[in-house]
């Protein structure tokens, strides 16, 4: 049973790392601040989510697991708020979103 949990937790950690990496790649490859926020939200959701879940599984039934799950909840509430604050500041500032050729 514990071997299954270990493997599951390792898989979740790997998946989380992979998606964090992809989110970072998105930050570098995407053209402007708005599209880059889409990349960053991958890191915030599946990246951080899978890593925290993997860590919670590795911690087992303990207070630590509760803390990690509480962190997951806080991340889910905070990351959209900060992303929205950034996007709103950008749109009310001088930034014009980079749009598709067809929609210009």
């Amino acid at each position, binding site marked *: 049973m514990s071997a299954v949990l270990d493997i599951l937790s390792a898989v979740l950690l790997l998946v989380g790392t992979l*998606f964090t990496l*992809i*989110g970072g*790649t*998105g930050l570098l*490859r*995407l053209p402007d601040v*708005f*599209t880059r*926020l*889409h*990349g960053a*939200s*991958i890191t*915030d*959701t*599946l990246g951080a989510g899978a890593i925290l879940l993997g860590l919670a599984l590795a911690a087992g039934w303990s*207070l630590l697991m*509760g*803390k990690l799950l*509480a962190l997951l909840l806080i991340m*889910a*509430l905070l*990351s*959209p*708020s900060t*992303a*929205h604050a950034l*996007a*709103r500041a950008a*749109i*009310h500032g001088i930034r014009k*979103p*980079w*749009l*598709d050729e*067809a*929609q210009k």
Partner: protein
Amino acid sequence: MRKTITLLFILSGTWLLLSGHTSPLLLSLGLLSVTAVVACVSRLEVLDDEGVPVHLLPGLIRYVPWLIGQVIRSNLDVARRIVSPELPIHPSVVKVDATHHTEVGRVTYANSITLTPGTISLDVSAETIEVHALTEDAANDLMSGEMARRVQRAEGA
């Protein structure tokens, strides 16, 4: 009064979770600080539906699993686009209707939009939410109104 007791329990639970202490001295100190916080909050008169929104819990329990599914689905889609060599993105700015939501519902809706990769809420007003979408699919998904309907159901419960 119900809100006061609910907040007392939530804060005590949080205190226990974060501290992990069980000795009588620290427990009584924790209870003291929790009571002090609840006393301050009730004197500030913020112990209302907005400050302690427990009435939304039953609706949220049905909404959150669906949202997690959506988030994973769009994560995979956006991740695939980022790693693909051609970078197949078609950003657009669309407006979605938000007139049928309460204030809390609008916040939930806008936050859900932002939490889902591929869509970000840019500006929220009483009537509409302005959304930046990374792809046409993401914009169309949002315009279909499925998320709006589910948020409405969640806040109505």
